[in-house]
């Protein structure tokens, strides 16, 4: 690890000020950043600890929730309102990492965590456009089982690894950010970027900006859940995951939200599939067909081609779970 300075921000303004200039990184639980510093992937000259900033979970006027960026993942998952109103969010968080990591990890850090692409993490031995723009992408012809099947670019095929973010995308969360230029709100579905020509740019956050809170509206879904698919039963990232919420009316789908994890550089909100399903019956076939439409542009690789069918079947099974319908 390279030497760095450490400071602890007492307020959002102070954090913004301390991190100005761009060579300092914000430090949440450190479960991702510190690992990457050890590996030499991240080399900040300073760390600004933001865990003393607001991490409260509060009800908003409209029956929604506002979650401070410093809230620990475990605190969010255990919160009674989260469990009662947003089961998909609680389940998504609990499906991630380990109890120890969730106790440390913050909501801000979870949103900003970096890809688990093994070539990204190997500074000494691999080429990576995300880490070193223009150097190449060793994942393309290498191990890419965990990589994207949609929305990737020739520059980068990495996925965003978060479980929590998949649920937030399905819930149409909003990300409150603040910076020297003031505060603004970014819709969760837009927050992460696709790689395009610039895989090193991962979110819409501008330099000097930070996440201060996540807001979700009152849940529109009568039922919701999260299902994560992986070889190891726990402590493994998703090969594919599905966050889905559903409200039925007279046997027809009235409200629906679907997002997928493990398949793209961002939580993949399946808007096309939702549109195809709205107003129709909730059957596994309908869901699988709708996802086929959604994934029409998928460009899987030899190492992850199985994810296309896997995502469809998983969504079909989630539909059965939510609607109580049969195949």
């Amino acid at each position, binding site marked *: 690890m390279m*030497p760095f300075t450490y400071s602890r921000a007492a307020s959002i303004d102070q954090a913004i000020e301390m991190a100005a200039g761009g060579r300092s990184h914000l430090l949440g639980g450190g479960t991702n950043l510190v690992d990457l510093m050890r590996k030499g992937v991240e080399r900040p000259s300073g760390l600004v600890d933001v865990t003393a900033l607001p991490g409260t979970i509060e009800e908003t006027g409209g029956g929604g929730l506002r979650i401070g960026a410093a809230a620990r993942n475990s605190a969010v998952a255990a919160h009674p309102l989260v469990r009662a109103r947003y089961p998909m969010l609680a389940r998504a968080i609990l499906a991630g990492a380990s109890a120890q990591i969730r106790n440390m990890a913050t909501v801000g850090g979870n949103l900003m965590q970096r890809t*688990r692409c093994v070539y990204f993490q190997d500074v000494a031995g691999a080429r990576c456009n995300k880490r070193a723009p223009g150097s190449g992408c060793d994942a393309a012809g290498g191990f890419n089982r965990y990589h994207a099947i949609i929305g990737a670019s020739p520059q980068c095929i990495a996925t965003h690894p978060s479980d929590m973010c998949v649920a937030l995308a399905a819930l149409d969360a909003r990300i409150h950010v603040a910076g020297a230029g003031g505060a603004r709100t970014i819709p969760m579905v837009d927050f992460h970027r696709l790689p395009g020509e610039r895989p090193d740019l991962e979110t819409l956050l501008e330099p000097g900006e930070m996440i201060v809170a996540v807001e979700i509206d009152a849940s529109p879904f009568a039922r919701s859940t999260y299902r994560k698919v992986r*070889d*190891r039963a*726990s402590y493994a990232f998703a090969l594919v995951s599905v966050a889905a919420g559903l409200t039925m009316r007279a046997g027809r789908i009235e409200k629906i939200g679907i997002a997928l994890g493990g398949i793209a550089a961002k939580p993949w909100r399946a808007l096309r599939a939702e549109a195809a399903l709205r107003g129709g019956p909730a059957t596994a076939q309908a869901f699988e067909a709708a996802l086929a439409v959604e994934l029409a542009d998928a460009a899987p690789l030899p190492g992850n081609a199985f994810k296309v069918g*896997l995502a469809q*079947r998983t969504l079909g099974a989630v539909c059965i779970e939510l609607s109580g319908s049969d195949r």
Partner: protein
Amino acid sequence: MSRIQNAVIESVKTVLGWVPAQWLPGGTPDPLIERRAAIGRQASRQDGPAKVRGEARFAAEVAMDRLTYASLVHGTVTRGRITRLETAAAEAAPGVILVLTHRNMPRLAPLALISFTDLSAVGNSSLPILQDPVVRYNGQVVALVVAETQEQADHAAQLIEIDYAADAARTRFEGAKDDARTPASILIEKNHVSVGDAERELERAPHRVDNVYRTPGHNHNALELHAVTVAWQGGSLVVHDATQMIAPSANVLARLFGLKKEQVRVLSPFVGGGFGGKGLWDHQIVAIAAARLVDRPVRLVLSRDSVYRIIGGRTPTEQRVAIGADTEGRFTALVHTGYSIMPTYGACPEQYTLGTRALYRARSFEIVQRHLDLDIVPNTFMRAPGEAIGTFAVECAVDELAHAMSVDPIELRRRNEPDRHPISGTAFSQRALMQAYADGAGRFGWERRLAQPGARRDGEWLLGMGCASGSFPYVRMPGANVRITLRRTGEATLSCSAQDMGMGTATVQIQHAADRLGLPVEAITFEMGDSSLPAGPLAGGSAQTVSIAGAIMAAADKLTAELLRLAGNASPVAGLRAGEVRLVDGGITSIANPSQRESYQSILTRAARNEVTVSAAGSPPLEMLKFAMHSSSAIFCALRVSQVTGEIRVDRLLGSFDCGTILNPKTAASQFRGGMIMGLGLALTEETLFDERSGRIMNATLADYHIPSHLDVPEIDVMWTGIPDPRSPLGARGIGEIGITGVAAAVANAVFNATGKRIRDLPITLDKVL
């Protein structure tokens, strides 16, 4: 190993074939088999409380004055040469004392590779260590930084700049097959075994299976990272190491650094998991050299990444198994051939075909292993090297044949159960595999299995059951020495440079010594973990327990003779010879007339001695050559496979073992369970991602190299026949490795039973099942 070795071993076996069994070790069963008191009792580990309290000091925790800390730099090309090596910035960094590279490393001879004929040779690699600017595999050590703190060393290590001129490297398994070598022997067995014409038999067999099975590379992931704390004291060397080969390491280090044997002391009282990986590698050598140069103690703890880079793992294999059977299911041909990686500078041949020789009777055999030469960190021994993955191929093939013939897989095994060693014709010392199957099947509920795949389900989950045999050879190492000091107080201390990687070495030998010497367990102390004690064998091949037991047996005989001598003519046991007495109840007792006895206290008091000390080595392990000695097991698995996702979740695992006397049910059960859990990793998740383009391991971290998590480990039931082996000390055979064997096949066979899909390529990940 060589053709000459084959010839020597063959002739020894032939001669032993003529020698009456009574003349050999194990010729008459160890009397303790019948007379155990402490042995076989449940006992908690002696080292447990100290570990729980944090008082046990591991190699990375030993305190030393003026200690310095070291950090490694690894090469990043696979073959090539260093063209620029810039160390000035590192040398100038805060706290740095030394930057060690090939430029200032003392010149050293290469290590002698581990050998089963030269027990003081324990190198895992014969490549030069920091002797030249040449890089020979990806991850090789190219520099070491020594600093006042670990952080300073780690920091400075990142400041070293190195350019390489890369050469073409051999990194592709498939590509190396054209140049495959066929070694004359595998360990001490002949490699190529051909009985009858197996290919012809196979062709005309009414039933046959013939498939290729693949197993990936694996890395060592002991909880405790490899670590050494090294100090030169005057001209002598003290090495606190995490090692499973204390005495041999001390010998080799003495030779390497030009010291007398007494000048090297290796200490390793606690090891946090070995599994074959905790041997002598480059890190001890560079740390010792650095400590000499800085003239202060040095501590080097490998990072997890470093463990992957410089500690070899298990080689990937490609194995062909073909079985031909007659209409009754009797094997007419058994073919087991394959490829694995074994660089010329490595020591471990991954003997995946050795177990196959003793598993089944067959009319013909064709068995041979081929070695591929790649530029990699040399692979090494990993829990049940050979059998762990060899049983995967063979035991899947047997299941495939059983299914094709519509015969229950246990029944098919029964029809092919050998009554002597199928190839050599030697008698088994003891073998009750079929009893293990019967006991296991009963407890597991095997009768509930439906032969038809996919016939049982629970919602989206398909349920399946599978079984497979495991096996592991009996090994007793030559050169195990023990010293016994018996005091007038009726207490005894046993000393041996043995090692404990968490399995309970001292605990079990104390139980043994209590029975052997006729003393209560509380009266026995077992000193170990230090090369200044009488040399023990390395802990490997599941052989340490019986090897030390053999030495204790020999030492107890010597002690008996010595006590009789000291007892003299005034003793109630005067006139009796060693063979006519036994050690019981704190004294010597006539076997013929148990009332004729004298206590140790009385003998030593009369002889005016506070204590008596004897040392002995175990007898040469000739029983291994005279008899076919193997442990075996029946593994049962019940699991579920999601029809939606292909996810596999194991519901139940049962291991039924036939491993001789079980010396301590508690420590034994945890060895079996631990092995079976490792078997689950082998079956379902473990895989080294070796990028054949670069020759680099891409998942050198536990985040990406998946061992089973708690949620993957179901209830594991273990049971054993407990039938003593009449040819071994205490009737015991090794139990440390057999647990992993057979598990991958039992899982794969259960996956087939659930889904109708045969996965012949480990690990069985969900995409393969879909």
